[in-house]
């Protein structure tokens, strides 16, 4: 869920962090110093965030936690994999292509106006409308008429998607480009572009960004001001399940290591766990460290445009030469999980272990396999975006490859993310590279579409788009939802092709102050702030 942008925001001082490790204390000694007293029974807490700038759900990229408190999604995926309905009463289809969404009656926006089907249709049209350039508009791309609002050249001639029809106040129909069994999942909590905005607020989007009005359990108190904390309080007329607290303060930090230290001092109650602190978090925070399983997966990207990587055995050998367990323990404090499939384990039906021996550390077999494939000529230069605290990780991988395969492997950072992205998309690199994908809804479909379809667009992933895989994914989309089994079958094809070695199933890490008794999550890896349990 956190994008590279957030992670990169932490930059600068990665080295400082190791140095200060000696000065850290036990969290037991430091009490929760401040934060406002609860107004009534429910209590309040604060969370460290990256300053969002953009709060409109169709545009935000680092305000997921805020968005998930101020808006209610149509559907919600629970931790046990069950899909529940929140703002939607039902989402049904007979052919997986025409979906009927029925809203719950009696739900209101924070301004008191009812949430109607028209609001949804207007919002989605606004988000998808090309000239608005909404960053998250891609989440609507599967709806018929999306292309009309986003023509390749020139201005769109219409402002509405043909695939959206209002049936009555509480019902609307969605016509997709093709059958898709995962549509109800795509309406779940982290697909924020699908959150409703009141129709009348669409006239002035700048004003709406300053003070968004949602349909969720919390409402924004004052206008949002950049770089300043913003507060949400429980919305009294919320028709859904009441949150466990009354008030949340989101405090912007420019450096998430500072936020970590502030959480240690009890000045902020929930903070994300910076990579540089993963190994010491348990000492600092004891049992107040959380590693939430997330729909994120990392790969060692391979330059398939370079013929030295043509032989599948070369790719398999590289994979077997990487000691995932040790890297995880030493660099990530054991927070991640070595990947054994091509989609994150939390995505239902993921065939864990399908990667088999190729995802295990087998240095001798790796060397033998590379030998058999004819060896490797020249330097193997691993390229990754610099300034994001990834140096240790890629140096470790380069070491593995050098020692186990005898190749001349080095890890080289680019100046920043933009330079990396350009080098990767221009195929300007001839060695392995940084590659990961964090899905927004936990379905194998969400990860596979981005990775293995030419239309997917994971720009840092390996460009491997075999036709049989595309056909198999389409078939799985069209099949009724079977808990991910049909998508698992697609991975049989992928493992044979072995485009790039999966590295880790990711977790998103958080730490809390003593004020928090338990932080709970949902399958998208972010904390579920509406259900946080505060200490007495």
């Amino acid at each position, binding site marked *: 869920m956190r994008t590279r942008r957030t992670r990169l925001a932490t930059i600068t001082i990665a080295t400082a962090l190791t140095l200060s490790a000696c000065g850290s204390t036990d969290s037991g000694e430091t009490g929760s110093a401040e934060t406002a007293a609860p107004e009534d029974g429910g209590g309040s807490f604060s969370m460290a965030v990256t300053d969002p700038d953009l709060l409109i759900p169709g545009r935000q990229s680092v305000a997921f936690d805020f968005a998930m408190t101020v808006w209610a999604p149509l559907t919600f995926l629970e931790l046990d994999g069950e899909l529940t309905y929140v703002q939607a009463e039902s989402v049904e289809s007979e052919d997986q292509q025409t979906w009927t969404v029925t809203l719950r009656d009696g739900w209101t926006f924070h301004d008191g106006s009812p949430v109607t089907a028209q609001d949804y249709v207007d919002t989605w049209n606004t988000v998808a409308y090309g000239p608005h350039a*909404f960053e998250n508009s891609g989440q609507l791309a599967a709806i018929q008429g999306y292309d009309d609002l986003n023509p390749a050249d020139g201005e769109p001639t219409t402002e509405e998607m043909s695939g959206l029809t209002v049936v009555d106040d509480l019902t609307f129909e969605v016509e997709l480009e093709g059958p898709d069994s995962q549509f109800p999942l795509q309406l779940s909590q982290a697909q924020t572009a699908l959150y409703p905005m009141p129709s009348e607020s669409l006239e002035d989007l700048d004003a709406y960004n300053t003070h968004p009005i949602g349909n969720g359990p919390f409402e924004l108190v004052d206008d949002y001001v950049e770089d300043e*904390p913003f507060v949400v309080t429980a919305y009294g007329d919320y028709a859904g399940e009441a949150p466990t607290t009354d008030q949340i303060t989101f405090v912007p930090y420019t450096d998430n290591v500072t936020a970590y230290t502030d959480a240690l001092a009890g000045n902020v109650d929930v903070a994300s766990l910076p990579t540089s602190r993963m190994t010491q978090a348990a000492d600092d925070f004891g049992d107040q460290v959380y590693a939430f399983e997330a729909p994120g997966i990392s790969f060692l990207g391979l330059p398939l445009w370079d013929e030295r990587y043509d032989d599948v055995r070369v790719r398999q050998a590289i994979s077997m030469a990487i000691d995932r367990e040790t890297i995880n323990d030493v660099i990530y404090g054991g927070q991640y999980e070595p990947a054994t499939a091509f989609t994150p384990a939390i995505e239902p039906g993921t065939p864990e272990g399908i990667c088999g021996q190729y995802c295990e550390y087998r240095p001798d077999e790796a060397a033998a396999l590379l030998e058999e494939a004819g060896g490797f000529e020249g330097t193997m230069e691993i390229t990754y975006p610099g300034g994001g605290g990834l140096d240790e990780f890629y140096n470790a991988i380069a070491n593995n490859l050098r020692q186990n395969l005898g190749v001349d492997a080095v890890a080289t950072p680019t100046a920043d993310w933009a330079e990396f992205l350009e080098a990767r998309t221009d195929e300007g690199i001839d060695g392995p590279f940084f590659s990961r994908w964090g899905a927004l809804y936990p379905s194998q479909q969400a990860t596979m579409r981005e990775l293995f379809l030419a239309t997917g667009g994971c720009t840092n992933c390996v460009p491997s788009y075999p036709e049989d895989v595309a056909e198999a994914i389409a078939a799985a989309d069209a099949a009724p939802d079977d808990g991910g089994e049909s998508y698992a079958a697609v991975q049989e094809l992928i493992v044979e092709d072995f485009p790039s070695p999966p590295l880790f199933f990711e977790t998103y890490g958080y730490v809390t102050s003593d004020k928090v008794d338990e932080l709970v999550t949902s399958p998208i890896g972010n904390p579920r702030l509406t259900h946080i349990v505060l200490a007495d």
Partner: protein
Amino acid sequence: MTRFLSRRLVELVVVFLGVTFIVYAMVFTLPGDPIAALGGDRPLPENVVAQLRAEYHLDLPLWQQYLHYLGGVLTGDLGTTFTGRPVSEAMASRWPVTITLALSAWALEMIVGVLLGLAAGLRRGSILDRGVLLGTVLATSIPVFVLGVSAQLVFGLELGWFPIAGTSEGWPASYVLPAAIVALYGLSSVSRLMRGSVADTMRSDFVRTLVAKGMPRHDIVGVHVMRNSAAPVLTFLAIELGYLLGGTVVIEGIFNLPGIGQLLFESIRTHEGPTVVGVTTALIVVFLVTSVLVDVLSSLIDPRIRHE
């Protein structure tokens, strides 16, 4: 004086044009497409990228982009950030933080530095003199982030004297720690300069005359030596203020102070040309203005400069 000032003003305009163009060109040549990178590893739809690129004139050649920018500046429009916020507004909200931090640090640096330098200069070769030298050089040689993070852990976390981060407790509580660390790095220069200057003045003929005349020592030091030694230190302090107002990026980051340095850092990272140029230009202006002020002040303090 008028001729002197008008010449400086013409210089100011030339420097402004030169600097804005150079900075704009530098941001322009940074590798990578800022708009494509905007979404992080979650790519933006192609037409969104195209739309945004057109909106920020990034699809034009450099000189056209720059003319667009310059045209905006002349009408008082400094452009917008990639999130659509006016650059002037983004800067306005951050200046107070940086100015507060810079002035606090500057005042500390001046007071402590001048006193240390004076004491060392009056007692050259003493333990105090050597102690000041050793202490200030030692402090300067520790990387700023080590000092910053350590201070946070000791004074913020262990002792709890100061907040660890943020500006929520206002001045002075939120600024003491970061300002003290920033000031520490200027101390060695200020105290060395002051020491040398005081030592020179003490050896000068007029001081010997004053001593012979029987003037009390504290009057000699307080009135005559101080004034005659101040010029070089003042020049340094003025330039230092320019630096400090440029934002102390690392300290602002560590202490989560949303100042101008952070804005510059963030905008370089995201290749936001208008913001980088806007901030840089503002800093250049600050620098130029402080240097003009220094010239004026020095000539007031030391009439010899005026006659040169």
